[in-house]
């Protein structure tokens, strides 16, 4: 739109104002005389002044707006209104290039920064509930943890299903772990999963590498295989493309954000109080005493309940150092058999968790002129954890420059630096991690001594009472564990990326992209002498001996080179877009991990305080180097006709150094088609006013190469010593056999989708349905021990139990099916000048089924505590289904005659029933060596042989939701805005591994509050679900994994509520000289509705393992955070 006033002179001064479509002045617009190439810029109020010829033409250009050419035509004043560049607004990044949205034929979810919940510390958390077809689970509340992202189900068993992250076009390189195993971006070490204990695992949650959420412009997720295929052998888990903010032409703009948050435990687990616990404790000890005496053939008399501890020891044959029939005399009056009210009632959750005050600062400066645009940002996050002692302190620095060197040559460069400083805590089992410890530790013990110091070793020595040791779980004051075990991680990640695009001829451009990333990390662990060791108190010789330290240096260097050619051509109604490329990427990792022991005290808490014996210092097994390389050729062709039909084909071939020489090159590709039905002439307003309707169909093939390096060659990997005479000699041995044909696993997926907008663009619906098949599964296939392989060890009490020997291979003819749909609906319900209201929602459903394991045996895995099997992967069922026996009921007093009659027959016949014997009562469990008692559970005998054996086990539940969903509400009234986000899951179950300790009726540790409703006697039968209490002896029957331990994992959560005010519109702001001012306040994880008894129904104890989903076990609990902040623009 041009308004002009005529002048007469040949060359004269031309002035004017440039504004945007809303009439706001645009500063720094470039105004060029086409004839003379003379260029000026508009000033702050959009005004310009240029000497131009009367017949000349002025070119107005500004990034983000359509370029406009205006003839001078003797005018002296030219006012120009620039239109938003609809093309750039409507483009989607699809990997290696941007495409017009209308040409996209795959299933891609795009999330703008404005849709994210930016008060969370990580990008993955900001995505919770926002994307259909993508499950984002908040599995940890640790300040250094993130969320788990899974795209469209599980298509793998051994390899990771983590998506590939691509940040500003840089696909993160081969991940790190033990010599390049696994998929994590920071290392594991002693105390966090590196030494056969399950602790916090960086593998699960660090993959968005702690980018600053404030730096995000948009996130695209390539969900279907057709879209992801351009990333070839790394794309089976989907691809997350993160685009960060860049500078825009214009006056420099400075923005400062400040956020203050108060975090607290989102949910407190309901446990027994000290009085209820004492009841359980006394009850369990007496029951055990009775069980033991009866099994010894002693005639029971209830008067024995009055036996003192020494009598109990003598009669039961137990020892004072580990007495499971003794009772603390402060809690039980032996002669009257009455409970004595406990002196302390400690709530260990209150002791361990605090409110944490989180502060976040963010400064961004951006602008651009003369063809150069820049952005500089810096962020600082100080995030203490709610668990006393943990924290993350993070600095994010980012710089990017875009320069138009000439009309043909463009340069773009960015540098990110992220510096993290963590204090972490070990998770998992209570004797290692305080989280489960705070649930198990006995409420009858004090947290602090009268002098304020930590009360130590109460559970163990029992010396505080009467010198007996009461066979409590070997556990120490959880607060002491949290404070005294030191786990720190300091990392610095530098990513630099530079690209140059040169337009060789019109429509054909060549792009070189060179990137490099460096990550250096120091991980340290110190376990002190002043914690108890088993039953030995702090400072005892055993505790001093148990002290140890570890230190680990990690160095990752990743290099990337990408060369792409891009050709764009439009003639008539035909439009072509062709891409061809070559990429090479190399990742080297170098880990040095050492451990030291034999500390004499805690004065120096470093490996340097190692003892003097040579064996005190050792190299950890994850020490080593590795190099991973990937070479790829790729191409994509997009054709569209008349904006009605579009067709896309892509191809990629990858060669990875991880694969065997016989199987090194993988080929991947896709075809997809779209039909914009609404652009057809026959299409009228079928779906309401101003509709668009596009139908899409696609097929793609992607791969997964998430396996360790060098798995195709058999190496001499073992080193250990043999002793002859008095000398240690070094011995060596080879690892197990290998598969030289090792390759990638493949996923082939069809996707059918529809994009609909209607009601004048106010309602938009995106729906996708997909069918995928994964095959050539990467799997450590069981193989006989004759192969010389070793089994992953689970160390317990000196002896080692283990998993079967395996060899990593591709299961040919294997097949895992995933089918599902996802639906995204956005509705702008009210759109007025003062009031806007929009709602959006998404729902995702996925069905997973193992069709074939390609000849491998079914896979049974112990997912929680020690060696009890929790999950099974077998043909016909979903990956990692819950496996066990089913509870058929509870034994009651009235059943006992029949129970005893059956038991007598069973024993008399050599532990089986004679053929044709008809059971009088319940099947006999071969897991149990003692007969059933009233209050015990009995199980379903599915094969009807009268015995409960492994043959009676079956699928008892599913870790997978029937559907997951999210919805968001946002509204604004004048300068006030409000938003609320929710997400949830329905129909999945959880095996709470914590039950092994906090729902075992032993009284050897605290229990869920529901245990107060257990069976006590026929007069007090409880709720009929919680079985009787006993400390050991007879309970092995009830504690077998059964559906008793399954819990409903459905939940509904309010992830965020925010209210904000844009004070920039107020006069007072302008008076202060500010360009903008926004204030907001909100709450993250406001509430969760769930029946689950533990902290958080989004469980992931095994850190994303496909084979053991749905297991909870001492993970860092989720936090609720109240935030407030201001954002000032200068």
């Amino acid at each position, binding site marked *: 739109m041009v308004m002009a006033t005529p002048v007469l002179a040949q060359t004269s001064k031309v002035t004017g104002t440039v504004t945007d479509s809303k009439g706001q002045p645009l500063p720094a617009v470039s105004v060029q005389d086409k004839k003379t190439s003379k260029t000026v810029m508009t000033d702050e109020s959009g005004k310009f002044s240029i000497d131009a010829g009367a017949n000349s033409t002025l070119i107005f250009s500004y990034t983000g707006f359509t370029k406009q050419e205006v003839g001078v035509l003797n005018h002296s004043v030219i006012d120009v209104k620039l239109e938003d560049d609809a093309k750039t607004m409507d483009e989607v990044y699809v990997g290696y290039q941007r495409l017009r949205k209308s040409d996209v034929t795959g299933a891609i979810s795009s999330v703008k920064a404005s849709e994210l919940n930016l008060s969370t510390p990580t990008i993955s958390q900001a995505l919770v509930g926002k994307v259909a077809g993508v499950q984002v689970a908040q599995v940890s509340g640790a300040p250094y943890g993130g969320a788990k992202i899974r795209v469209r189900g599980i298509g793998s068993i051994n390899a990771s299903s983590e998506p590939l992250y691509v940040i500003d076009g840089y696909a993160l390189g081969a991940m790190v772990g033990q010599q390049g195993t696994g998929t994590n971006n920071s290392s594991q070490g002693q105390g966090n999963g590196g030494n056969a204990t399950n602790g916090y695992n960086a593998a699960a949650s660090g993959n968005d590498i702690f980018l600053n959420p404030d730096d995000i412009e948009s996130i695209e997720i390539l969900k279907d295989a057709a879209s992801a295929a351009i990333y070839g052998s790394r794309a089976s888990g989907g691809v997350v493309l993160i685009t960060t903010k860049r500078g825009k032409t214009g006056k420099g703009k400075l923005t400062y954000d400040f956020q203050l948050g108060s975090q607290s435990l989102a949910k407190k687990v309901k446990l027994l109080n000290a009085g209820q616990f004492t009841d359980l404790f006394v009850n369990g000890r007496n029951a055990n005493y009775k069980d033991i005496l009866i099994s010894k053939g002693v005639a029971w008399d209830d008067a024995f309940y009055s036996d003192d501890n020494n009598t109990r020891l003598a009669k039961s044959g137990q020892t004072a150092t580990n007495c499971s029939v003794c009772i603390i005399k402060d809690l039980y009056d032996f002669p009257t058999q009455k409970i004595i009210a406990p002196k302390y009632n400690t709530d260990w959750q209150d002791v361990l968790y605090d409110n944490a005050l989180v502060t976040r600062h963010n400064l961004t400066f951006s602008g651009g002129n003369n063809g150069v645009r820049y952005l500089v940002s810096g962020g600082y996050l100080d995030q203490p954890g709610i668990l006393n002692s943990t924290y993350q302190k993070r600095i994010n620095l980012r710089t990017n420059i875009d320069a138009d060197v000439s009309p043909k040559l463009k340069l773009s460069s960015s540098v990110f630096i992220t510096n993290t400083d963590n204090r972490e805590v070990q998770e998992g089992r209570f004797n290692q991690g305080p989280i489960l410890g705070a649930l198990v530790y006995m409420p009858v013990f004090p947290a602090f001594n009268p002098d304020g110091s930590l009360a130590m070793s109460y559970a163990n020595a029992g010396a505080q009472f009467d010198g007996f040791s009461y066979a409590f779980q070997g556990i120490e004051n959880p607060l002491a564990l949290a404070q005294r075990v030191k786990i720190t991680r300091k990392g610095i990640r530098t990513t630099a990326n530079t690209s140059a695009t040169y337009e060789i001829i019109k429509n054909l451009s060549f792009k070189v992209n060179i990137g490099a990333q460096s990550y250096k990390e120091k991980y340290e662990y110190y376990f002190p002498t002043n914690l108890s060791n088993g039953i030995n108190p702090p400072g005892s010789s*055993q505790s001093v001996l148990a002290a140890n330290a570890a230190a680990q240096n990690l160095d990752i260097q990743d290099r990337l080179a990408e060369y792409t050619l891009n050709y764009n051509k439009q003639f008539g109604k035909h439009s072509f877009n062709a891409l061809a490329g070559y990429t090479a990427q190399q990742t080297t990792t170098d880990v040095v991990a050492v451990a030291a022991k034999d500390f004499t005290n805690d004065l120096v808490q470093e490996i340097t305080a190692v003892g003097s014996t040579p064996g005190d210092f050792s190299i950890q097994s994850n020490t080593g180097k590795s190099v991973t390389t990937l070479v790829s050729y790729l191409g994509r062709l997009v054709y569209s006709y008349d904006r009605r039909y579009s067709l896309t084909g892509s191809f990629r071939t990858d060669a990875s*150094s991880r694969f065997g020489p016989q199987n090194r090159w993988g080929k991947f590709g896709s075809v997809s088609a779209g039909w914009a039905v609404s652009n057809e002439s026959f299409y009228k307003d079928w779906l309401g006013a101003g509709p668009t309707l596009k139908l899409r169909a696609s097929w793609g093939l992607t791969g997964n190469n998430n396996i360790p390096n060098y798995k195709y060659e058999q190496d001499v990997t073992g080193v250990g010593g043999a002793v002859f005479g008095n000398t240690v000699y070094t011995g*060596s041995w080879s690892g197990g056999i290998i598969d030289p044909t090792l390759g990638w696993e493949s996923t082939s997926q069809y996707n059918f989708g529809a994009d609909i907008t209607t009601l004048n663009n106010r309602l938009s619906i995106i729906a996708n349905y997909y069918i995928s098949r994964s095959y050539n599964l990467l799997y450590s296939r069981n193989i*006989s021990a004759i192969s010389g392989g070793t089994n992953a060890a689970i160390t317990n009490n000196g002896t080692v139990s283990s998993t079967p020997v395996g060899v990593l291979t591709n299961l040919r003819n294997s097949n895992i099916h995933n089918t599902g749909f996802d639906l995204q609906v956005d509705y702008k319900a009210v759109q007025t000048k003062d009031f806007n209201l929009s709602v959006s929602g998404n729902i995702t459903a996925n069905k997973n089924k193992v069709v074939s394991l390609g000849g491998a045996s079914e896979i*049974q895995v112990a997912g929680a505590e020690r060696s009890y099997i929790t999950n099974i992967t077998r043909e016909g069922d979903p990956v990692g289904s819950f496996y066990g026996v089913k509870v058929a009921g509870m034994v009651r007093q009235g059943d006992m005659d029949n129970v005893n009659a059956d038991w007598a027959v069973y024993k008399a016949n050599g532990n089986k029933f004679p053929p044709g014997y008809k059971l009088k009562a319940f099947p006999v469990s071969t897991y149990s060596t003692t007969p059933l008692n009233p209050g015990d559970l009995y199980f379903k005998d599915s094969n009807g042989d009268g015995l409960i054996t492994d043959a009676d086990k079956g699928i008892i539940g599913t870790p997978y939701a029937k559907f997951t969903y999210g919805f968001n509400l946002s509204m604004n009234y004048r300068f006030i805005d409000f938003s609320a986000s929710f997400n949830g899951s329905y129909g999945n179950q959880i095996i709470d591994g914590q039950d092994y300790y906090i729902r075992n009726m032993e009284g050897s540790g605290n229990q869920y509050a529901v245990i107060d409703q257990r069976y006590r006697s026929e007069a007090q039968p409880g709720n009929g679900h919680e079985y009787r209490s006993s400390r050991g002896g007879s309970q092995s029957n009830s504690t077998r994994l059964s559906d008793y331990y399954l819990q409903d994992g459905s939940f509904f959560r309010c992830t965020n509520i925010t209210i904000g005010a844009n004070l920039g519109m107020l006069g007072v702001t302008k008076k202060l000289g500010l360009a903008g001012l926004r204030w907001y306040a909100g709450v993250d994880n406001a509430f969760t509705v769930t029946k689950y008894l533990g902290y958080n129904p989004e469980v992931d104890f095994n850190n994303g393992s496909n084979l053991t989903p749905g297991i909870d076990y001492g993970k860092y609990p989720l936090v609720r955070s109240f935030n407030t902040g201001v954002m000032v623009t200068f």
Partner: protein
Amino acid sequence: MRNIFSLLASALLILSISSCGKSFLEKTNPNAVRVDVGYTTEANITTGLYGVYQALRTANCIGEGAQLWTDDRADDVNTTDNQSNNGEPFQFSAFSLVPGNSYLLSHWTALYAPISRANVILNAIDTVTFANNATKTQYVAELKFIRALLYFNLVREFGDVPLTTEKLSTIQQTTALTFREKKEKVYAQIVADLKDAVSSNLPVVQSTANKGRVSLQAANGLLGQVYLTMATTLADNKIDNLNNAKTYLLACYNQKTFTNLSDIPFADVFDVTKKSTNAEIIFQIVYKQGDATYGSSLAKNNQAKGETINSMFASQTAGGLFTKDLQNEFEAGDLRTAYSIKFAPAVNGWFITKFRDNSAGATKDGYGGNDWILMRYADIILNLAEVYLYLGDNATAATYLNMVRARAQRPDYATMIATDATYKARYPTLKLAILHERRVELAFEHHRWHDLTRFFTAQELVDYFRAKNQADFDNSPLTNITTKDYYFPIPLAEHNLNPETMYQNDGYTQ
């Protein structure tokens, strides 16, 4: 910023690297050498041989901690905790062992580890030139001895087991060999390997510096024990096997370097300062005193709270426990009783004192120097008693039995039968008397379970257990034992590999 430029500069290097194509993609493990180039020199083969010895040391194999599959399984020691570790260790002593037991799988795998390591080295050794060919033939004999020893353990505990003497390198090759070979064939391989060993140039007795390595004494002794076991557990050739047992046990006996067993005090056998020079010890796994990694922890682990007899280590536990049934077996006045067990007032119970190292060298952390004795002359002598018994020569049998009794300063067999009514009632036959002598002499040395399965058939074993007094067995119900328990089940994971060829032992479900 300089850092960043160097980063990008290094990335540019990828241009030149990646253009090399093949070499850019072919990466070998920088931290390890490929197995086909790893064993090509005498020095490498030597470390490979040591690697085979190393595999013996673990508790899952036959090291000092291997109690679960031996004494716990038998009537000597009882695990009473059926809660910890999901009750899995408890299954061994309670005769409620299920195929899915993960400890059992570990044991199975650990028994095969030295076998497969030995196969790799035996496969490579032929093409390697040694400075002295005698070294090579000795190595081969040592490797074959160890392979035989482990197959002997496997066949005794599981019956028919997969048998391979090849170096395996592919999945196909391994799968083809994943089948249970009849136990007769497994014994044939054991005998073949040991015959090679007894006819080799191994030293009769290893030097003090080489204690822990295989000797001719050990090869003869083991071959004799193998034949003895074959005689009582295989259907055929009983007499031939007994005669062969006699031949090789006597060959071993005749290689002894002492005159009378009584010349070696019982306590000396377990004396840490004499472990490398004691003439009775034939084959042992050596543990290094004061060493956190290679030291023995038996003395420390067995020690009860408040005691100092075993170790300077201050124990807080009840120490090494054993059954009342075993305690009853010790004869009053037997010097072995006082040496092997002790009552600890602090825990109001008995504990094991057979393995002691309370010297300063073992430190207060309890890194003992106790070697784990796999074979000693008392064992061989009692085996000879067994052989003569089965050959019908009770008189000679009693002579050998009496050698062991004499050292313990106990009256001879004839005197006991004539004068001690309790003894006569408890051990009415010479066979039971020999078994009793073995139980006391070799208590806690992990022989008991293999002795029981050698002395008894499955049914006899069940009867033997059921005749005992439940009160002497704590929580493990004696009624649980059935004939199936004679063998361990095949671990579930191995059975599942091929349920037909890896068939389960009788009586085990799944």
